[in-house]
């Protein structure tokens, strides 16, 4: 294989592309979509985050400004956790629009994460959203197919393929040269996105810039690999088709099946085969189990009676009033522990069901490169399923700590003696409120994100190798007529 011939073919392919008007139309279309996607990604990121940060601060202020009071009142006053968007969310919206944004955190109760963008949305969200990732995942592949379908097939139709071969070019040089040329064209569309995103990420004031840039680099590499696969596929299909029309039809059919039909169908089938419980069913199951382990509010409950007796024995006293700590705080601590454990177990089961529902789509990464890049891109942008679950877990963790911290304060500072009627209610100093740390939403760290997506990464690398192997195989088998 001669490098100069390969480059010559690539150059020729590149030049030919500019002889038609259509490439300029495509460039214009991509430029328009890119500008709009960048604008709305930036806007949604900055506006939403500033709204959420504003309210997170408000909530903190109002927490700290609470006067002296009984710690259990503070446990019910609770807090709110707002989900922040990762800077890369302006690139790939992922599931952001379908996940809730705020959750009320209080003692004894796990509330739902509410107010997703989808809950304010008319039916239009179903058609998708315009984002830079969507441009790269859906539109650019189609453009690659448009630009690549004729690559070999036309040469065959015109008889120029024979000429090239007789003049000494090998099949390998032709196929790789065409692929290289096509990749060059794809870069023409890809690089502006890469640049725009870098600019946006640079001007954005985010605390962890190094990590964001690391994720950005990963994203760029992943997409580059994805486009390499698509360019190879386009050239392969073009080479094995009888005519350029035939090649175009095949590529369009591939696009429709792999980019539109398959992802939707597999997700629907996943949900069909692994039905998940409704909220009422989920809550009823938890309630039933809670009843069996005892009701901390019922003084005659056997579980809590045993607990009381053992506590009294250990401390060698005969009534709870004589204990060195507040007994009802102790009981609530116990109750919170048990109910949180039960809730978390049920929640984990639910999440496992969801993961099963999603597994079908995820595994298709090996037959569908689109599925691989979609998941990897979402994960690197912090907008995937795992990122959402991570937020939910952090919020629940904070809720639990808050409730238990208030129980501890109650045990430590509240007397066991009941206040006489007319007495001032028992309170503790509001200094304690300030001591309790604020909620801070942490993004999933990059290593974990990559680990979660090892399947997608493996699939993408597989695709890259397989497509290259196919080209090399084809260059031995292909026929000129």
């Amino acid at each position, binding site marked *: 294989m001669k490098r100069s011939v390969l480059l010559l073919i690539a150059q020729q392919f590149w030049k030919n592309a500019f002889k038609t008007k259509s490439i300029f139309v495509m460039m214009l279309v991509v430029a328009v979509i890119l500008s709009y996607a960048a604008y*709305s990604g930036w806007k949604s990121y900055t*506006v939403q985050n500033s*709204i*959420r940060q504003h*309210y997170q601060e408000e*909530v903190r202020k*109002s927490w700290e400004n*609470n006067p002296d*009071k009984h710690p259990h*009142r503070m446990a019910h*006053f*609770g807090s*709110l956790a707002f989900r922040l968007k990762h800077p890369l969310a302006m690139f790939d919206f992922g*599931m952001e629009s*379908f996940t809730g*944004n705020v959750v*009320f955190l209080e003692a004894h109760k796990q509330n*739902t994460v*509410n*107010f997703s*963008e*989808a*809950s*304010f*949305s*008319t*039916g*239009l*969200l*179903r058609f*998708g*959203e*315009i984002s830079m990732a*969507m441009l790269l995942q859906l539109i650019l592949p189609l453009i690659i197919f448009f630009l690549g379908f004729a690559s070999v097939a036309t040469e065959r139709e015109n008889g120029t393929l024979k000429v090239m071969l007789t003049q000494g070019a090998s099949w390998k040089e032709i196929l790789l040269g065409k692929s290289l040329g096509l990749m060059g064209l794809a870069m023409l569309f890809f690089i502006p996105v890469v640049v725009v995103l870098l600019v946006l990420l640079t001007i954005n004031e985010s605390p962890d810039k190094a990590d964001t840039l690391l994720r950005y680099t990963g994203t760029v590499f992943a997409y580059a690999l994805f486009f390499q696969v698509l360019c190879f596929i386009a050239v392969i299909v073009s080479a094995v088709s009888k005519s*350029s*029309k035939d090649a*175009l*039809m095949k590529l369009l059919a591939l696009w429709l099946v792999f980019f539109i*039909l398959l992802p*939707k*169908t597999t*997700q*629907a089938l*996943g*949900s*069909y085969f692994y039905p*998940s419980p*409704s*909220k*009422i069913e*989920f809550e009823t199951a938890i309630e039933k189990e809670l009843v069996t382990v005892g009701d901390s509010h019922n003084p005659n409950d056997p579980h809590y009676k045993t607990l009381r007796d053992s506590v009294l024995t250990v401390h060698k006293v005969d009534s709870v009033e004589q204990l060195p700590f507040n007994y009802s705080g102790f009981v609530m601590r116990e109750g919170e522990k048990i109910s949180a454990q039960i809730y978390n177990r049920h929640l984990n089961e639910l999440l496992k*069901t*969801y993961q099963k*529902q*999603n597994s079908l*789509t995820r595994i298709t990464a090996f037959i569908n490169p689109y599925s691989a890049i979609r998941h990897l891109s979402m994960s690197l942008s912090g907008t995937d*399923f795992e990122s*959402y679950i991570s937020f939910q877990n952090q919020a629940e963790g904070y809720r639990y700590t808050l409730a238990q911290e208030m129980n501890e304060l109650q045990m430590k500072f509240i007397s066991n003696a009941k206040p006489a*009627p*007319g007495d001032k209610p028992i309170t503790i100093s509001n200094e304690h409120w300030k001591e309790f740390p604020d909620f801070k939403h942490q993004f999933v760290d990059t290593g974990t994100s990559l680990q979660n997506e090892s399947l997608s990464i493996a699939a993408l690398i597989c695709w890259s190798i397989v497509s290259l192997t196919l080209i090399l195989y084809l260059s031995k088998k292909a026929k000129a007529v």
Partner: protein
Amino acid sequence: MYRLILKQFLRSRTAQVSLVLLLAIGIVSIFIGKQFLDKQERIIANVTQHQQDHIERNVALHDEMGLLLYYLHFSLIDQPDKLTALSIGQRDINPSIQSITIRTLEAQKYDTDLNNPSALQSGNLDLGFVIIYLFPLVIIALTFNLVSEEQEGGTWRMVVIQSKSVVKILARKLFVRAGLIYSVLLVLFVIAIGVLGLPLNEALTGFIVLTVLYLAFWFSFCFWIVSFQRSSSFNALTLLSVWIMLSILLPASVNNYVANRYPVPEALGAMVEQRDGYHEKWDIDKKVTMDKFYEHYPEFKKYGVPDAEFSWLWYYAMQQMGDDESAQQSKAMQEKIMQREQVSRSVAVIIPTMYTQLLLNDLARTSLSDHLALLNKTNEFHEQLRLHFYPKIFENASVKSEDWKTFRPEYLTKENNLNWTMIVFPLLLLIAIISILTFINVRKLGAI
């Protein structure tokens, strides 16, 4: 003649594959819709029993009216129509059941269902999706080479020479394709009616008429492009680009625009305000709270300001403040959402895909407006419960004095007033315009 065209058409592999695939996905989509509807119906069927058990259990446990009402949940149900299975719309995102206590409503009414965000993101594969998304693709696949296949296959000259009217031949070819695709649609509707037990009512008629018109739009549009007599590749590219424009880019752009133009910070604001509005009252003079409460409900003024450290009268007055103090934000939020709905709808009139989607959701009562109606009804429902129980709590009426059996879940009464002009007119107008444009092209064709 028709038989020949039909035979010739059915011999092509594209036709066979795409029609069978369309039918298969259509049937799958009906069963996916059925699964969704079954689940909803099962939950709703259980709610009545659930509420009865729940009330019984709590009535046995608590002998104080105020404490009992702290726990009691009452359900309001927006029973989905059978048509929901064909166009799930926003029903998977927004809950169809509101289960509320008489405490602060703002803290309860936006609670979401449990959902897999991946599934929500991918969206439902319901019949509405198949009709709006996939049928046009098949129409494109089967019509884009109506003329060009003959031209490129070298048979066009023969067709022109042998037949009296080229236009007639083309029209017949188009009718054969349309006939087959409409047959698939018909079969799917028959299956849907059988499988789901759809009542044969006006809404279903509207649903069918709308989809028939929507497909007619795509046929007329494809025929118009074909009438330019360009190459197969050109037609395929053009039609697919238009499909992407109408089914992905335009609706998605409108969605982005609406979401960015009308962010809803009021939702978060209301959430914070209702919490603070209630909780702050624990730390301030009872009289302040009670005065505000009596300003809202002068009829309860006679209960005065309680002296005791704790009383249910004061407690529910505090809870009421959660709603009262967040009312403005809550209203602003509702208005924002209405604005979003209005903007989306007005833009949709000129974009057939969006238009059809929104109307199908309306017909199936699965749109955002239907959910807003449920939220509004929830306000009323909650207020009725409050007004019923407030005096009983304040007077500490005996729990046994209430006939608890009468508290069954309530249903949202639905008014489905079909607007036939809106169903028929915009699409018909569009089809008429395209047909005229096609006619102009075809006249030139006849002159060859």
